[in-house]
């Protein structure tokens, strides 16, 4: 039989492909961020949702419009802009003006991502670039912290974050007082649960780890980088004479380690590179906290490491069947 009209597709092998595409991967990350977002709503009120919505809508719109303007195929359905928008919202104070969140995520998408060719072409984490730009442009808004709605001693509309208290010369005892805890272990617990001042999604270690566990189980993220970053933060802050447990629970270490330092595009792909990236990001964060002007250093710690990724990717692992060249001598 020869069917003259039959049209056959020619393509290179393999002729089989997994159903797991970019959209599914990004969808998983969105699911993993939901507990932290829910925590933000619980601790800081429904305004957290408004800030997130403003950031996400702006991110998606910016990507769509920018690519339309350049007459390029739009890729908003891959959900990566949604992830960027969510991540940026989670590292903003709940009191952020909505227009500021929108400007931040539009900047993140257009300047940090699309100008480099879109998802996969960017060298720095878009959400962190967005935050860094907002921090430089509107420092007052970016450092205006609301206390947790569930803190024991709520008598002010603004407060300082635990790290902010330390930066201003306070001690752990002052931090304990500020959150109304009874002692050090109560402080740890309260911080782990997320009942403290801070960015919308960074406060609850418990909820962040819950989301991260989902990504680990579904094999979306690799544990090497986050483990290295947390361990480096722990060790370095201890060397600086700080309380290491406090240092890991405070600020954005856990959010940064599990959701920013695991960003595929802007972190190393090689095993040793992943360890090095995590250690470097942890170290930089502690150095900024200790020696810099800002109380917190996760944003710049990770952004600085983003820059050296091409070098870390040069440390490739052993290939199958690789034999060390033997020295030729008589």
């Amino acid at each position, binding site marked *: *039989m020869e069917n003259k009209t039959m049209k*056959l597709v*020619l393509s290179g092998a393999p002729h089989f492909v997994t159903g797991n595409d970019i959209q599914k991967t990004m969808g998983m990350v969105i699911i993993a961020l939901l507990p932290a977002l829910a925590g933000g709503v619980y601790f800081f009120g429904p305004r957290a949702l408004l800030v997130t919505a403003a950031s996400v809508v702006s991110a998606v719109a910016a990507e769509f419009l920018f690519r339309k303007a350049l007459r390029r195929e739009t890729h908003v359905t891959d959900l990566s802009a949604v992830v960027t928008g969510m991540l940026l919202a989670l590292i903003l104070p709940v009191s952020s003006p909505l227009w500021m969140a929108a400007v931040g995520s539009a900047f993140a998408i257009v300047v940090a991502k699309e100008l480099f060719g879109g998802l*996969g072409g960017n060298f720095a984490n878009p959400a962190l670039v967005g935050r860094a730009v907002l921090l430089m442009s509107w420092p007052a808004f970016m450092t205006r912290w609301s206390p947790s709605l569930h803190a024991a001693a709520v008598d002010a509309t603004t407060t300082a974050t635990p790290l902010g208290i330390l930066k201003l010369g306070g001690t752990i005892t002052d931090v304990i007082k500020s959150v109304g805890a009874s002692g050090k272990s109560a402080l740890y617990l309260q911080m782990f649960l997320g009942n403290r001042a801070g960015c919308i999604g960074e406060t609850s270690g418990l909820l962040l780890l819950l989301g991260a566990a989902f990504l680990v189980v579904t094999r979306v993220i690799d544990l090497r980088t986050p483990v290295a970053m947390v361990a480096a933060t722990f060790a370095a802050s201890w060397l600086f004479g700080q309380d290491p447990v406090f240092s890991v629970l405070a600020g954005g270490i856990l959010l940064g380690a599990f959701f920013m330092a695991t960003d595929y595009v802007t972190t190393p792909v090689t095993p040793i590179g992943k360890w090095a990236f995590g250690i470097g990001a942890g170290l930089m964060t502690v150095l900024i906290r200790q020696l810099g002007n800002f109380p917190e250093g996760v944003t710049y710690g990770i952004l600085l490491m983003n820059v050296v990724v091409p070098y870390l990717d040069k440390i490739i692992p052993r290939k*199958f069947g690789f034999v060390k060249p033997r020295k030729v001598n008589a």
Partner: protein
Amino acid sequence: MSLKTFRGGIHPPENKEPTRDLPIEHVPAPTSVVIHLTQAIGAQNQPLVKVGDRVVKGQMIGDVQACPAAAVHASITGIVKKIEPAPQSNLKDGMAVFIEADGTDETAYMAPLDAFACSREEAIKRLRNAGIVGMGGASFPTDVKLAPPADKPIDTIIANGAECEPYLTIDYRTMMESPADVVEGLAIAAHIVGAKKAYVAIESNKADALPVIEKQFAEHNHGILMGTIIAATKYPEGGEKMLIKAITGREVPSKGLPFDIGVICQNIGTLKAIKEAFVDGKPLIERGFTVSGGACRTPKNLYAPIGTVIADLIPGVIQISDNVRKVIFGGPMMGVAVPTLQTPVAKGTSGVLFFTATESKQYEERLCIRCGRCADACPAQLMPMLLNAALLSDDVNHADAIGLIDCFECGACSYVCPARIPLTQRFKLGKDLLHNQRAKEARHGK
């Protein structure tokens, strides 16, 4: 119990159910065949017959004085109608001998040869004259494979029954239906290379073939220590280097061959062909293959003369649906999509798959998001995303430095890629670019 395996690999859908329990069906004798003169890796064969000649089934019709090369034989008895290029499953449209059957079933086989009594040289010559090649798809001449250099002693030979390509079940069926032939062929191959140990290795999803095989050991082992091994069901477990690693723990060195570490692998169908070449004097003129895929209404295992044109089997033997959009010779991971059903079955054809429009979907390639899944999947433990980046920036030298040549094109990276990057295809192309560049450098005396 953790099964023997290698690092990396993927778990694509197996899709073997439609054919795994269907006995191999012999196709009705075709009225014509198209036999390509060169069907093995190596030198180009010259025709030994002219248009108008009468050829007999089993008669050698193409050969060349060169190594490596494998002779080809008439697979039916009849008249040579023409000798001209024809569509080939490697897309190269090589010279082919068109034979029209004359209805007689005369054969011209060689005299049987006792592999255990004849000299090593005679045995190798028999393999050469029988045109035996690796039937798993690579089509490397078996006489060359079974004659490693004298300074590379072989201690172990492995019958590769892993059949890790989805859809394909022909090796499994061959083990179930002709276990004695497979084991006898394994003993002959082991004897030729002087291996003390011989294993039949399968993936765990074919475990029921093992007792069938083991039953034959007593009668057909010819004093060679034989055993069976179950490896994990994972693609590409049947890749030669992967299987050897899984079973012996030895790694074939980069740019090396299995004989460098004392091991040789043989495909199941090839072992049966080896047995037939010695015991029956029959050259490699017929083979089994699986017919399957979403657009194949009659999935089955077939046994047909080499040179049978697929279009001639439709609709008598194979029925396909109207929405067929892709025809693949081989498995879905490493097989070749062919442009026409006029393509004949070759010595290396392990399957013919018919894919629907949905199964043939083409995807838009996105930028690499560096998720690292390709590196996790790569059985050669390469970093495909870095190779991709190097090749996209035309830096073949860097690609070479990070292992481009070690890629054996299994397709695992392309399979897992969420950005739908045709990594395997790009690496194939990259290797060609690299070879061309090296050749150019050599010409300029660099």
